[in-house]
């Protein structure tokens, strides 16, 4: 098979270098003018779900980063071509910036379109190619590509490097240092007295903790911003305590009431806080405030069990949410409307007599999946595109991460 042109999707994987080398050798085997087209595919924009700082973590590269990656790959290719460089044309392109490529199937279709557009009949896949599109549940890109007959697909025979052992610590000195300081201070606090034995054992224990757990504890370097957050957190605590006492009295009255006037309902609130620690703070505050209990946390979406209607109203008014936003994002963010005004609230179980409570025979396994009653009917058009499916789709990992951090 004489391939004198190749389309190579790149993603910055660990075998990228070998793939480029193979691609260049492959095309230069042919005669005449040859060309390679490197494309970077942008995964779908996930800024809807995460805060700007966190996007970089797993949702692909920014256009500038992608340009840099493509430039690097092009330089490699020219380097490998050596004296044959006059015959080789290297092209680069970025796709997916304006389209919404959600599944591997979308991606495969788009890649095949690209081959047709530029008349390149071969696709060379990096064995470690990871476009950041699709999930383990979906069929992989290779499978989707083989369904198209228009072009041939080949996988570069790159040698897989052994994966880095998980014991290698990727944390920065600042993280290790701050964790060391915190755990050392905690140790001395527990010891209660400054005595050389405690100091020495404290240093040993704090070192073990800092080296072993700094990767688990921090996602990014602690900064001065965290300090101002701690300051606002101290302001937040009295507010939370007042809320707790106030609603505790209310709940005490309900529980000690002879008729037990409760009306428990599962509700769902899409909050406007992002990221692990803020959501954990909000979920824990919601649980601490009587009458509301956070049952599930999936990204920004909290499933909250409410005991009495008044607690439900308070939750939808979003006082706590506003306070948590104040703690983590500053005063400006307090202006965001309450969940009720945004239409981000749902009662997952029907309220008898208020709307349709007819669908009784749902299976016990699908809590709140079957009938979702909008809180206020006039808000149906307010752009809440959330379906109950994303309760499973958006990662459960966030919650377990938080708990892992909790135990340290």
């Amino acid at each position: 098979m004489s391939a004198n042109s190749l389309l190579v999707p790149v993603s910055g994987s660990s075998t990228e270098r070998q793939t480029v080398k193979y691609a260049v050798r492959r095309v230069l085997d042919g005669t005449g003018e040859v060309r390679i087209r490197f494309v970077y595919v942008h995964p779908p924009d996930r800024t809807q779900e995460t805060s700007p700082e966190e996007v970089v973590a797993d949702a692909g590269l920014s256009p500038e980063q992608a340009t840099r990656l493509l430039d690097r790959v092009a330089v490699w290719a020219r380097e490998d071509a050596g004296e044959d460089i006059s015959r080789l044309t290297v092209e680069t392109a970025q796709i997916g910036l304006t389209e919404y490529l959600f599944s591997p199937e979308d991606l495969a279709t788009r890649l095949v379109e690209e081959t047709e557009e530029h008349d390149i009949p071969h696709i060379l896949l990096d064995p470690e190619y990871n476009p950041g599109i699709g999930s383990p549940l979906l069929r992989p890109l290779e499978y989707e590509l083989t369904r198209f007959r228009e072009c041939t697909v080949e996988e570069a025979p790159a040698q897989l490097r052994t994966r880095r052992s998980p014991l290698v610590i990727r944390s920065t000195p600042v993280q290790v240092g701050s964790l060391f300081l915190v755990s050392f201070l905690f140790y001395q606090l527990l010891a209660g007295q400054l005595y050389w034995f405690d100091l020495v054992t404290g240093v040993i224990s704090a070192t073990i903790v800092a080296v072993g757990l700094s990767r688990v504890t921090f996602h990014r370097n602690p900064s001065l911003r965290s300090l101002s957050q701690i300051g606002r957190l101290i302001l937040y605590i009295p507010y939370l305590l007042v809320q707790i006492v106030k609603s505790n009295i209310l709940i005490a009255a309900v529980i000690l009431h002879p008729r037990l006037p409760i009306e428990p309902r599962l509700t769902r609130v899409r909050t406007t806080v992002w990221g692990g620690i803020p959501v954990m703070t909000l979920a824990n505050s919601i649980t601490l405030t009587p009458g509301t209990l956070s049952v599930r946390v999936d990204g920004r979406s909290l499933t909250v069990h409410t005991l009495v209607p008044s607690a439900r109203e308070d939750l939808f008014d979003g006082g706590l949410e506003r306070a948590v936003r104040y703690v983590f994002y500053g005063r400006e963010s307090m202006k965001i409307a309450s969940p009720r005004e945004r239409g981000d609230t749902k009662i997952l179980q029907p309220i008898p007599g208020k709307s349709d409570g007819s669908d009784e025979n749902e299976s016990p396994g699908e809590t709140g999946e079957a009938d979702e009653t909008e809180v206020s009917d006039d808000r149906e058009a307010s752009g809440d595109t959330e379906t109950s499916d994303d309760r499973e789709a958006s990662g459960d990992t966030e919650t377990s991460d938080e708990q892992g951090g909790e135990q340290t």
Partner: protein
Amino acid sequence: MIETLRVGAIIVLVVLGLFFTFVSATGVLRLPDVYSRAHTASQADTLGAGFALAAVALALGFGTTSYKTVLLLFFIFITNPTAAHAISRAADEQGIEPWTTDDDRTDRDLYEASEVETDGGVATNGGEQP
């Protein structure tokens, strides 16, 4: 004078702590399902513990050891809601449906619902068998 005030404050705090723990116990006994019980378990109990520990801190005096009470309070305020969340989440994942007002399921039904859905120990999980 100040001593009397302090003793008075201690007694008031202990009584408040007892009251809220009593509410929590009542709730755990009276409420219909695990979710609503988790409410009182995490909330009334946390507040009750808070008041009682405040009394202890007041009695031990400021300084030598009472900061440990504050530490304890801090832990309880963080771990209690997290534990309640973990428990209710486990209940949700097992498919136990929250009780609602027009619900006439009995304890027996709730128990069986949890047993059917779970693989937590029931021999339905084939992969675990030796």
